């Protein structure tokens, strides 16, 4: 999973049917201390994330198929699967 900050949402009319009715957000990758990194990701929200939230994005393996309950595999890879409340870093 990847850590990121929600920057906004994608408004889209013409899209693959697997994206119908889903909230599609823009997520900027961040390091654990909150420093932004380049490479904005487009991810489907499953937890009610909003602007500025630090979120967990899964883009590996069969995460999206499992979480969204598709019966067949779909061209959808990145899903927001958690909103981070707190991170504790062990090194100073």
């Amino acid at each position, binding site marked *: 999973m990847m850590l990121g900050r*929600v*920057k*906004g*949402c*994608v*408004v*889209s*009319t*013409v*899209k*693959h049917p*697997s*994206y119908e009715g889903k909230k*599609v957000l*823009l997520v*900027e990758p961040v390091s654990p201390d909150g420093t932004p990194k*380049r*490479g*904005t*990701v*487009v*991810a489907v929200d499953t937890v009610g994330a909003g*602007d*500025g939230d630090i979120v967990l994005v899964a*883009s590996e393996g069969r995460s*999206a198929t499992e979480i969204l309950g598709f019966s*067949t*595999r*779909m*061209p*959808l*890879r*990145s899903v927001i699967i958690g909103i981070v409340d707190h991170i504790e870093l062990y090194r100073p």
Partner: protein
Amino acid sequence: MKLGRVVGKLWATAKDKKLNGLKLYLMQPVDESDRPLGSELVAVDTVGSKEGDLVYWVGGAEATFPFQDRQIPSDVTIVGLVDRLDLAEDRPA
């Protein structure tokens, strides 16, 4: 998934037959401010993109699954056209 800008079209007569009938575009991955990220990619289109469109695309194994009845040999597939980006920083406080 990531954002991209369609920057060109590509034709290939000799290709895997599973790509027959599909449109190939040159697509530049971009961030939300339209700044390029890395180099251009060749993408299979599934949504009727046109040159200059802002799109989102999927990579990896999921790129092979746009159709119910068959898998396609693609590792970059365009799956949506962006109407607009609603960015928090652009909204009035």
